[in-house]
């Protein structure tokens, strides 16, 4: 376990920011999109290039500037961050491809702005992934909130305006109102903000204060959409589908949960939480969210809203997994970051593809669509399997470890929650697939001829679907990273 | 609220040294040195002048600047550039007091001694006052100059003299009308004299700085004036007093002209 000083993390963060001027300056749309691809590819390669070092148990550190004594703008690449960065950057490539297809087909306005802020959002995401202390994390967290605002409100119509407001109110409100004070308080009691494997709050403050901070942090990261701060996520579904796909299935919400995981492990530390048995608080909040979100999802007819609520539920799996404070549970939770990402993005891609090809948004209008877009719906089916947590998909592993973790922690209630929610997941996904494929010709709403979305849309979702399956047979390297993380934080 | 403030002040008065008590700290820390040293350090018997223009000369410079600033502000706020000349001008024959109206288009009669331009019919006209004031003004100005020049030895100095000089012009403006006064000293003149006055002061200071000593250290002028530094200080004080006088006079007139005529520079009050 040695520490490498390298500027790579900074580059990885900055590369897409650097792309922004190029995007603005490029005259023709083709050039612009080429730049997007270049940036995405570069980012991915840089991050991959750091992977081996991490897998060998090293960590890469780079300090930009010491802004506040004890809290610098500093990057540290460790397994957890690596895992998240890998997911985000690899998915950016696919999403760029997808969004090109989507935006062009629908002739959206001001695409340059769209791609610019997309790039910014990605930088922020990687920044969060590699943040070495709470300050840096907060910095990029805020940057992400602001960068995604124009994306969420891309259409600039009444609806977009309303949801944009809601989005900012939730995200900024919580981050300024809860997160900032919590951060400053912990800085004042601990004198540092540096993430430590065992957390830095241990032994610095009373139980009451710790509990308060915990609550502040968990709800402060409203991007994790833990109830009651979940309202923005369904509202944000007015955004163009690629945005929803990347940001609201991967970047934004995952940044939320990722931050929570970071804080729980790096600020509080597992020992502290288990000695004060605060894990229960987390579990309760998470379980509640899981069940309620799944129930709400049952009632949705708009496909994207359904996916949104399912996301809310799935995010809490991750929090729950860490909240169990048991090695296996944490492994499951962390794995779920990756698994759910691929599964959910596939689903969003499908939803988008359906919209692009047929202009349909609601499930009730999709009867028999399987005949029309077999590939898309096949991908949809696989992805939903992964979300439910059935083999042969990656989702199975994460779910499996969560279950093991709940047993390990002797939390039968949690086990029940997990199983129920899986059933509920099945209950809201299967009808869609069923209706799509098995219906009599007369109740089908589409004439019986295959007509898929444009290739730019189709290929990415095929890839992600394939990857989901692949993860079942080959969960490396994510599995390895996850175990390393757990080994690190449990000191085992 | 007023009462509250007053209460605070009176409460604080409890610890004051009683009035005119020679033993009070105010008299025993800084001021004795002024009183005892000023003559030999600046060779100016009038201690107030010495302190004003030398020990605390910097304050005084900014004080002059304040006056100047006030002048500029009044000009800035009120002055209306004369665009709309009335098409009809009135002239009054001073001896008979009868007035004539002249169309702009017509050719204006040569404005002789006994014709004066007026804007309103009720413009006052009093020969006695005018004559007296016209006689008085030069004496006033002479006195003003004396006060400025003699500030070293007797009460007086730039401010007082400048005010007197300004007052003389203002008296002229009141007794006759503003136009006459402006005829004697046009706007441009006093508007430029005003900064020039301050400039003399600050420039002297800057000159001292150029000559290698600190700003406003008149001792530096010794080289130029061919006198010992102490006398140089007294000369320096004289120079700045003159500057102050100019500035104050010009500003007084400037402010009066602007305020009395609402910036129109017509006949004024």
């Amino acid at each position: 376990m040695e520490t490498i000083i390298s500027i790579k993390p900074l580059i990885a963060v900055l590369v897409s920011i650097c792309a922004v001027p190029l995007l603005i300056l490029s005259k023709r749309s083709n050039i612009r999109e080429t730049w997007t691809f270049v940036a995405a590819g570069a980012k991915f390669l840089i991050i991959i290039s750091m992977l081996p070092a991490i897998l060998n148990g090293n960590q890469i550190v780079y300090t930009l500037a010491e802004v506040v004594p004890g809290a610098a703008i500093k990057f540290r690449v460790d397994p957890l961050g690596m895992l998240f960065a890998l997911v985000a950057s690899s998915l950016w490539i696919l999403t760029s491809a997808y969004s090109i297809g989507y935006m062009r087909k629908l002739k959206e306005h001001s695409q340059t702005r769209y791609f610019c802020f997309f790039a910014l959002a990605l930088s922020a995401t990687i920044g969060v992934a590699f943040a070495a202390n709470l300050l840096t994390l907060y910095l990029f967290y805020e940057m992400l909130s602001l960068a995604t605002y124009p994306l969420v409100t891309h259409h600039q119509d009444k609806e977009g305006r309303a949801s944009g407001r809601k989005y900012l109110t939730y995200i900024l409100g919580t981050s300024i109102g809860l997160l900032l004070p919590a951060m400053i308080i912990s800085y004042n009691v601990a004198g540092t903000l540096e993430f430590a494997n065992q957390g830095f709050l241990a032994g610095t403050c009373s139980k009451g204060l710790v509990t308060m901070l915990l609550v502040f942090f968990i709800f402060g990261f409203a991007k994790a959409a833990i109830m009651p701060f979940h309202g923005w996520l369904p509202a944000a579904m007015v955004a163009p589908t690629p945005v929803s796909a990347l940001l609201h299935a991967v970047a934004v919400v995952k940044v939320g949960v990722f931050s929570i995981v970071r804080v729980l492990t790096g600020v509080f530390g597992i020992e502290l939480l288990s000695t004060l048995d605060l894990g229960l608080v987390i579990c309760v909040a998470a379980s509640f969210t899981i069940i309620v979100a799944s129930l709400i999802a049952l009632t949705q007819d708009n496909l994207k809203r359904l996916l949104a609520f399912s996301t809310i539920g799935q995010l809490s799996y991750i929090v729950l997994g860490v909240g169990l404070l048991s090695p296996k549970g944490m492994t499951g939770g962390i794995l779920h970051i990756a698994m759910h990402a691929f599964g959910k993005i596939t689903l969003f891609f499908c939803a988008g593809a359906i919209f692009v090809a047929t202009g349909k948004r609601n499930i009730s209008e999709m009867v028999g669509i399987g005949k029309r877009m077999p590939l898309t719906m096949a991908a949809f089916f696989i992805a939903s399997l992964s979300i439910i947590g059935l083999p042969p998909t990656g989702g199975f592993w994460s779910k499996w470890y969560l279950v093991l973790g709940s047993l390990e922690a002797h939390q039968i209630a949690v086990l029940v929650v997990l199983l129920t929610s899986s059933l509920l997941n099945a209950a809201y996904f299967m009808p869609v697939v069923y209706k799509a494929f098995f219906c009599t010709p007369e109740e089908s709403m589409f004439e019986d001829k295959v007509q898929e979305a444009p290739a730019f849309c189709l290929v990415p979702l095929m890839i992600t679907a394939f990857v989901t399956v692949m993860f079942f047979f080959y969960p490396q390297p994510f599995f390895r990273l996850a175990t390393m993380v757990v080994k690190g934080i449990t000191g085992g | 609220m007023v009462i509250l403030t007053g209460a605070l002040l009176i409460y604080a008065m409890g610890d004051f040294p009683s009035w005119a008590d020679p033993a009070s700290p105010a008299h025993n820390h800084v001021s004795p040195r002024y009183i005892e040293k000023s003559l030999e350090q600046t060779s100016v018997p009038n201690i107030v002048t010495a302190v004003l223009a030398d020990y605390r000369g910097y304050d005084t410079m900014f004080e002059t600047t304040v006056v100047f600033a006030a002048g500029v502000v009044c000009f800035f706020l009120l002055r209306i550039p004369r665009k709309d000349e009335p098409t009809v001008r009135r002239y009054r024959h001073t001896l008979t007091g009868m007035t004539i109206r002249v169309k702009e288009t017509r050719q204006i009669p040569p404005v002789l001694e006994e014709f004066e331009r007026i804007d309103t019919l009720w413009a006052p006209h009093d020969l006695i006052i005018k004559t007296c004031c016209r006689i008085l003004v030069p004496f006033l100005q002479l006195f003003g100059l004396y006060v400025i020049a003699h500030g070293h030895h007797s009460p007086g100095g730039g401010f007082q003299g400048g005010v007197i000089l300004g007052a003389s012009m203002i008296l002229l403006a009141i007794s006759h009308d503003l136009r006459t006064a402006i005829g004697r000293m046009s706007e441009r003149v006093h508007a430029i004299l005003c900064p020039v006055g301050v400039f003399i002061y600050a420039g002297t200071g800057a000159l001292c700085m150029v000559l290698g000593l600190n700003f406003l250290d008149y001792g530096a002028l010794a080289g130029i004036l061919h006198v010992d530094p102490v006398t140089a200080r007294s000369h320096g004080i004289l120079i700045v007093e003159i500057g102050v006088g100019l500035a104050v006079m010009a500003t007084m007139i400037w402010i009066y002209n602007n305020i009395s005529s609402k910036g129109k520079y017509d006949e004024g009050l």
Partner: protein
Amino acid sequence: MSQHYPALLVIVPLLSALLISIVGWLNKRFCFPIAVAALSVSLYSSVGLLLRVMDEKVILYFLGGWDPPWGIAYSVDHLSALVLVVVSVVALLNLIATQKSVEQEFSEKIGAFYTLYLLLITGLLGIVVTGDAFNLYVLLEITALTGYGLIAMGEDRAPLASLNYVYMGTIGACFYLLGIGYLYISTGSLNMTNISSILPGLYDSKVVLAAFIICIVGVFLKMAFFPLHAWLPNAYTYAPSAVSSLVAPLMTKVMIYVMIRLMLTVFTPAFTFSNLALSNSVVWLAVIAISMGAVLALGARDMKKMLCYVVIAEVGYMVGGAWLGNRAGMTGAILHIANDALMTLCVFLAVGNIVYKVRGYAFEDLKGMFRKMPYTMTGLVAGALSMIGVPPTCGFFSKWYLISGGIQAGQYGFVAALVFSSLINAVLFFRIIEIGYYEPFGADHGHGSSPVRMAEAPLTMVVPLLIVAGGLVMMGVYTGDIITHIIEPIIPPAIGN
């Protein structure tokens, strides 16, 4: 020449102000270049001072060659050097940025305008650099007088607002003068350091206490600290945009500087914080000031008014931070002087550009601004983020210190007020941004081209704005260095954690 920096800094603007007022009668075209040159000189010398202060703690300059307490002495320490740099930077940038709008607004009185402008800066710089309590009063009056004049040239409600400002400002200045008189009667000296060396014997004297209270109240009046803020909103709102973008950043901040100078140098911390009831009540006033400012800003219907109330809230930040009585709070207050000056300048400049283009600053005038003036709006957003306190803009870090100071002092009301006001700021500014971002697009999904065409303000207005916007981020990133090298030495060890 470098030993004359303290004098040059003040004298050069003064002399060139006089020069301008002469030249203004001959040829107007020379006024602007002269002003730029003068302010560049004072910027140069103030930076030079800052660098010199870094290694030789305190720089003294005896005017007229008389050593204090008999003569007037300039004393420059880290605090004043920092504020000097801030003042001259803001003044210069604003001068350049507003050239066009000045030409637009005062076509034939340009000479007078620049004269007053330079005199104002002279006064401000002098206030910061002087070490003599009475000299400070004179300079205070210069600043005030020129300020009244400049403000009154605004819209038709400006003269009235300015007149009220005259009343309030005069009371404030007179209170200060009176306080100095009380100090003089009890110490017999006017030089700040000299006074503070004499005072310790007199801490229990009622006169000194009264002097302290009177001075502070006077300064509060000048800086529009709640509940004495009534004059500020109208005065700054109806002032010409070129002026409000000068006075809003500088006036209040310099007054804060004076307050801190009084607290730390004249009356030593030992005296200042000895009376807990006093400092606590001031902190609570600050809490009220912040909340009131935020709420009133919500009620405002146009940008300038809104920003004015924000300024009032910011004053509350600094006063509260300074009176917390611990290092973190004081650090935050001093840091916020610099940061707040910059960000206020940023937003006011942006508003100025908008006024220059669309001749109005009501919220409706913002419709479609993002398409019309993208760069200006970028500047506005940067300023807004800093006001809200989003890292890495500098506003975040000063807020950081203020909040931690509040926590350490156990003043949770203050902390709550800070958080509250940043939330309100978020609402305020995103309301504006939203208007600018949406309005041109109607119900039709916004496809195709929008009616608004891009019409950006001239380059001389945009570039300084963007420089300031960049400066906000720079300040934020280098906060650490600023604090360790400049602010730490200022705070006397008497102020513990």
